[in-house]
């Protein structure tokens, strides 16, 4: 009996250890497959060259255009999602009736369950033609439309997590503010938002990280031209789109093109890893504050 119990515990531990294997697998693959790339291309060139043309005859290996494309689309997404998501969180928390909140929250969360390829369709077929009414010079592929659509996708991420953070602020703070004669708006922005700031920051950083790693929306609607620009009306290529673009073609394993997707991958991993860990840091601080 006791041996059987030990064996079972061992098997359970083995299953749980798969998470460790996965983490090390990811690190191993990204490092070992991009290592040969960085032997041919110096880090200096990788980070300072302003062109990314590994698939052309005149090869340049500067990651900046891809990073710029990623940051531009993610920036637009956050510019849409943060004000709207935070306003919804405050509205549902301080203004709306509990019944309304109970109905609206799950409906908004539907936005987060829609597969991203479907959002890509939305950006390409619905939003881009609509925006062309206002910006006739804008092409079929651009940074603006997928950025806006990614923003819509991450609204529930920000609104739900921020609302939880606002809700967790002790009632006494809220009541003290109302007792001083403050309005709901003043209470929200001068008491609740500062008190819940860690939680709101966590939700925002996680949303940015999600947008940075998002693939299908940008692959469908942003284009496949590495473009070092801050103009949202131009087509851009993100890190993720580049990986998809190469994967769609027939790339010989071990070739330099094959290695570039791992070099792009490790850059993407580093970006999201830093963002995620900043959010963990804030999350920890947030917990310590009120418990």
């Amino acid at each position, binding site marked *: 009996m006791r041996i059987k119990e030990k064996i*079972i515990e061992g098997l359970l531990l083995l299953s749980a250890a798969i*998470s460790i294997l996965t983490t090390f697998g990811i690190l191993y693959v990204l490092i070992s497959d991009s290592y040969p790339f960085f032997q041919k291309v110096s880090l200096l060139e990788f980070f300072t060259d302003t062109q990314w043309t590994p698939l052309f005859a005149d090869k340049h290996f500067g990651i900046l255009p891809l990073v710029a494309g990623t940051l531009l689309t993610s920036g637009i997404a956050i510019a849409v999602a943060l004000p709207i998501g935070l*306003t919804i969180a405050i*509205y549902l928390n301080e203004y709306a009736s509990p019944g309304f909140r109970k109905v*609206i929250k799950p409906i908004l969360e539907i936005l987060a369950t829609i597969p991203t390829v479907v959002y890509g369709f939305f950006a390409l077929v619905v939003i881009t033609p609509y925006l062309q009414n206002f910006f006739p010079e804008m092409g079929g592929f651009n940074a603006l439309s997928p950025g806006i659509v990614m923003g819509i996708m991450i609204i529930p991420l920000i609104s739900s997590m921020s609302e939880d953070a606002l809700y967790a602020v002790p009632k006494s703070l809220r009541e003290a503010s109302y007792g001083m004669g403050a309005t709901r708006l003043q209470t929200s922005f001068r008491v609740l938002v500062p008190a819940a700031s860690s939680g709101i920051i966590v939700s925002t950083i996680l949303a940015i990280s999600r947008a940075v790693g998002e693939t299908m929306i940008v692959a469908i609607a942003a284009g496949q031209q590495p473009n070092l620009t801050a103009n949202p009306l131009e087509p851009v290529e993100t890190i993720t789109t580049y990986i998809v673009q190469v994967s769609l073609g027939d790339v010989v394993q071990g070739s330099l093109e094959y290695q570039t997707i791992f070099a792009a991958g490790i850059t993407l991993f580093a970006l999201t890893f830093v*963002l995620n860990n900043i959010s963990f840091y804030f999350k920890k601080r947030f917990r310590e504050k009120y418990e």
Partner: protein
Amino acid sequence: MSKRNSINRINDQVFKWFGIACTIFGLAMLAIFLYSVLSEGIPRLDWQFLTSLPSRKPENAGIFVGIVGSLWIMGLTALIAIPLGVASGIYLEEYGKKNMIASFIEINITNLAGVPSIIYGLLALEIFVRVLGFGKSLLTGSLTLSLLVLPIIIVATRESLKAVPNTIREASYALGATKWQTILYQILPASAGGIMTGVILALSRAVGESAPLIVSGALIYTSVIPSHPMDDFSVLPIQIFNWLSRPQKGFIVNATAAIIVLLGITFIMNGIAIYLRNRWQKKIKW
């Protein structure tokens, strides 16, 4: 003083309406979106479309290969990810609460949950396709998605186990049951609803994924129906992606109709998950 007071009141009202506007914006986007998909796709959606193979002519093309591929992927991912995820959850919640390994595993899971899905595709391309030699098969695809959704299942399992009160455990031990007997006959049945909810949400995520599968080698265009885990395959989201990248209007309409099917699957699965969660929360009152 009273002037400032009324300005404050006005600001408060203005923000209230701004809040309503933002909420409506979110809902309106969802509505516009569903309307544009339904209005364009429904006329195209018929039996022929569901049961036909891909074709170079949009009016003859169908999504049968994609549907079969997606069902295979969902089934295999369930077979792989459910036992592993539930077992990990049980270990972390019931066995390894205070030890170092458990807390190290926890850090890993939290980090993995934030890794972009396309990175899992790169992992699979090197490990499953090349090192283990599984090729660009259904097995590779479902292993990739299993790793991707494991954190969801683990977290859901832990939450549901945590909700079972300690008195149940103690009562079972008092009757002479071992730890594993207690888990198997008492704790798991009591938390099955919550675990199922997490499992369905994880599988619905897997059905909608395409980026990691494209990277690990799923086919963009195929008219061969897979019949074995080692077969090549394509899935519904990839078929939609392929059609969206074609210039002909007919393929865009096809993509819209395929989106209705994909959304149907996703919404039904999420609906079941929500239903199970509500029923489970209502039924069990400790």
